[in-house]
């Protein structure tokens, strides 16, 4: 058994079988994280570059931990402190890195398609850690892993993604992945943050958060990304909270207990109230823990791919 591709560029077009393999393999790595020695020698001798052109704490740390726990050699590269500031192109940067004999590249970039581009110009295995507003496949995989862990299965459940869908790579990867795995996917948010034609992906749209809470089994609440649109798409964060914020009162009005996810970082009391974020329905911290296992699984499956 092996993945169909030697890169992880996105979940669009990835088969059910491949997603299943990544999730199943992650279960073995999840167990390693509970051991006294959280390290296995599997990727000894492999060199992995973390190429981050956008800031990130969670994803970068999670990847780095996953790499180190598989005994790989890790090089961290951040755009602020590199020749990129001197005007070097992405292609030149990675070609130079490639000459230093690297085996895998984890890339985050503001341009959609950056990871796809890399996979065409260099020979290493490429993992997309977020490309613009396009895809963030490892986040969607860890969301699906957490969902499966908590609800037993992905198939047949209804996941509603709430918030800034237009600017979210997490949303798109989740839509592709969840649909492949047989879940029902909907989105909810103000009209200005929902892409036009999203219904063509087979996604139902809610403009009322209470309707979404009533119908869904899981809410995946996204961060309001003020840095991407300068806060011009809704009047104030207070108004956003009033109409779309996930609060305890709203959850209590619904009879069933739904699961609350958030990819982080949270704007507390904007998209998610603090008591919900820390409440018993929230699985936000489990998502972080599972993220390391999912990334170990992907690194293992790609790093030993022949």
């Amino acid at each position: 058994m092996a993945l169909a591709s030697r890169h992880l560029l996105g979940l669009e077009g990835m088969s059910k079988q491949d997603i299943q393999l990544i999730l199943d393999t992650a279960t073995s790595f999840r167990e390693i994280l509970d051991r006294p020695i959280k390290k296995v020698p599997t990727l000894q001798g492999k060199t992995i570059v973390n190429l981050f052109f956008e800031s990130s704490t969670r994803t970068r740390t999670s990847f780095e931990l996953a790499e180190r726990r598989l005994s790989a050699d890790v090089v961290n590269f951040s755009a602020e402190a590199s020749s990129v500031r001197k005007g070097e192109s992405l292609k030149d940067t990675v070609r130079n890195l490639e000459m230093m004999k690297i085996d895998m590249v984890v890339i985050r970039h503001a341009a959609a398609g950056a990871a796809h581009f890399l996979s065409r110009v260099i020979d290493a295995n490429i993992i997309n850690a977020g490309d613009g507003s396009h895809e963030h496949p490892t986040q969607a995989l860890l969301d699906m892993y957490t969902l499966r862990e908590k609800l037993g299965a992905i198939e047949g459940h209804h996941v509603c993604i709430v918030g800034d869908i237009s600017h979210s790579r997490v949303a798109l990867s989740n839509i592709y992945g969840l649909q492949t795995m047989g879940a029902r996917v909907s989105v909810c948010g103000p009209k200005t943050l929902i892409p036009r034609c999203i219904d063509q992906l087979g996604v139902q749209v809610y403009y009322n958060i209470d309707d979404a809470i009533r119908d869904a089994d899981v809410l995946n609440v996204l961060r309001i990304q003020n840095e991407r649109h300068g806060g011009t798409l809704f009047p104030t964060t207070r108004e956003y909270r009033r109409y779309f914020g996930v609060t305890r009162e709203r959850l209590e009005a619904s009879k069933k207990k739904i699961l609350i996810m958030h990819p982080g970082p949270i704007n507390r009391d904007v998209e998610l109230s603090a008591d919900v974020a820390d409440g018993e329905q929230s699985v936000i911290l489990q998502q972080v823990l599972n993220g390391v296992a999912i990334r170990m699984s992907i690194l293992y499956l790609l790093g030993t791919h022949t």
Partner: protein
Amino acid sequence: MNIKSRLIDHQGFQRTLTRLAHEILELNKGSETIALVGIRTRGEFLARRLAEKIQEIEHRELQVGFLDITLYRDDLRGKLNQPILKGTDIMFDIAGKNIILIDDVLYTGRTVRAALDALIDLGRPATIQLAVLVDRGHRELPIKADFIGKNCPTSPNEEVRVLMQEIDGEDAVVLVEKGRA
């Protein structure tokens, strides 16, 4: 499967397991300090069987765990088929215990090397002892078993297969020609 000969038949299989159980108990002066760890896949079923035998003799519960050594293999990169991880399942603390490591066939010794590394990452056992159903020779590493069901001199172009009720529908050990069917 082109079977050349049967090394152990059904009855011999049960007798061998019984003898191994007694030998393990004799050397460790009972079952108080020991725990069994089977290497997946067939070592897992052998460990379960041996545990049953030992419990019959000693009338006390025995701790049994299972080890997946895939992540510790030295040939991961060269393999054509990526092995599926089956997971390590050892729910007890191995520190200070006498661990009986169990596998079906001892051949090059590379699996056992990987298993030793995997075990030591879980803690520091008092001793690790190796029990195998068949030792077929051709070692590539300085490793030797403490408990051996049967010594079978083989040639490298033969293969020893341990068949078990749980997977194969019968208990036996057979010698087959390599280039398997």
